[in-house]
């Protein structure tokens, strides 16, 4: 058990870089996270904005014990994500941009598989899985249908159900609405709001949707090329840069528009 147990998430001076083969013998190294520090209070929802390849997913992967950092550290309720992964895994769950499932298995079977790894036996999931699927608005008559037959929006609802089934106290949402149609996007966002009001969950929401960040989060951070440029309330961000919108704040902070992506950014996306 480490320091900061009163904070849900603490990240201090976190560094991560990747190297990939370049040509026959060469290797390229790209920093995905550069000395990132932040903290998230219990029950808070923090949005991390950033372009593709900015390091958002790398941050989420480090927090969910899927990546080992090169330097610095991260703690979930005081547990070191690198040295104490087991208690961290009990506390954390994640929804990513890809709703990854065994495609031939049904929603109920996929959820049962996930639940077993959190110690939930068949007796417990028999009632819990239908209940959680109902809560995310999944039609009961499609519970037994193979995932490959479901729409992307429907799959993302099952992904949310999978994360919530294990009652995580820290929920890591990595672009959960990217690629969804407007209706599915609105439904997923409404559900995130519901989680915020009904549960004692701390949420880290990584997104490149500025409106989503502004609507859902208490504070908004900007990760740019691996560096966290700010993490403040939306009003504080706007006041800091003297602007009206988050897009203008991005421009003021980076000198680029949010849509601009250089070759370096595209290259970085492969790494981060």
């Amino acid at each position: 058990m480490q320091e900061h147990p009163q904070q849900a998430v603490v990240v201090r001076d976190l560094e991560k870089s990747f190297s990939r083969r370049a040509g026959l013998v060469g290797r390229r190294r790209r920093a995905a996270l550069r000395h990132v520090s932040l903290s998230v209070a219990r029950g808070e929802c923090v949005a991390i904005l950033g372009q593709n390849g900015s390091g958002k997913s790398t941050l989420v992967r480090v927090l969910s014990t899927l990546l080992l950092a090169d330097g610095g550290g991260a703690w979930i309720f005081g547990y070191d994500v690198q040295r104490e992964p087991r208690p961290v895994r009990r506390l954390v769950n994640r929804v990513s941009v890809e709703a990854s499932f065994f495609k031939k298995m049904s929603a109920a079977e996929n959820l049962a598989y996930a639940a077993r790894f959190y110690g939930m036996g068949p007796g417990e999931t028999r009632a819990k899985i239908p209940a959680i699927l109902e809560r995310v608005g999944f039609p009961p008559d499609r519970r037994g249908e193979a995932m490959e037959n479901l729409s992307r929006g429907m799959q993302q609802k099952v992904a949310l159900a999978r994360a919530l089934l294990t009652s995580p106290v820290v929920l890591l949402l990595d672009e959960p609405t990217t690629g969804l149609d407007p209706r599915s996007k609105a439904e997923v966002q409404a559900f995130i709001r519901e989680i915020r009001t009904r549960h004692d969950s701390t949420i880290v929401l990584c997104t490149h949707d500025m409106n989503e960040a502004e609507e859902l989060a208490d504070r908004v951070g900007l990760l740019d090329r691996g560096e966290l440029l700010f993490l403040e309330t939306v009003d504080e961000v706007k006041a800091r840069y003297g602007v009206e919108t988050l897009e203008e704040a991005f421009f003021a902070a980076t000198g680029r528009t949010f849509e601009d992506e250089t070759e370096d950014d595209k290259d970085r996306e492969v790494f981060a």
Partner: protein
Amino acid sequence: MTSSEYAATRSRILRDELVGLYGVVERNVYLTKRYFLWDLAFLFWTIANTLTIVFISRGVGVSPAEQNALATKLLVGGVIWAFLGIIFEIVTETVAWERWEGTIEYTFMAPVSRPVHLIGMGIYAVLYGLVRAAAVFVVVVAFIGLHVPHANYGAAVALLAIASVSFIGVGMMTAVLPLISPEKGTQLGFVAQGLMLVVSGVYYPVSVLPDWMRWIAKISPATYALRGNRQQILTGSGVAWADVWPLLVIGAISIPLGLAVFKAGERYAKKHGKLKRSG
């Protein structure tokens, strides 16, 4: 923490691990159900493959009794080849299949221990492999018209189950390969299977091998499984201690070694970002 709290925590962790182990087996049952027809087609291929080996006995100019014995020896080799192939395939799928589906990150961030996860895959592999091996054996015996009146099937299954501990250990080592090379790692599992069998006398006695290969045969669990199973099917002998103790020793070494290799591979993958689907 008091001793009773400590005991309660230990007991909860043990219970959760057992539920996790059940979950791994249960998931494999779901997948087998969903891919049943594909698995059936693969079984036909295995039977055809085994027949091509066993029919060699029919072209050898020896007495019918000797032909029958040769065919039985070849059949045992073919069945163990198929059994080992399934074990390596399923244990290797611990990573390969989940990586392909994109679920691997969710599985690897779950609070179940890796030994339980891998052993769960191993248990299912052995159960499924035994059912399949029995099916191959029965069909080929009927097809060729083999006479195995003295066969001790109980002893054969028991010996195969004991050997499976070592096979799972080796399988764990190959399971890590798709983490290191997502594209080619799975194929290297087949290389391990082939190498193990070639030194173990899969279709011939170990005595025909060069000296250096015979030395390697001594540390291959397949050597003892093949030798014991042939005796049990041909003569009806029981489980011989001479076959069991080497398997227990190899198993006691290969399981911890397999886990250590997998752990090192997982650490490498987490260091270099290889868990990611597109990585």
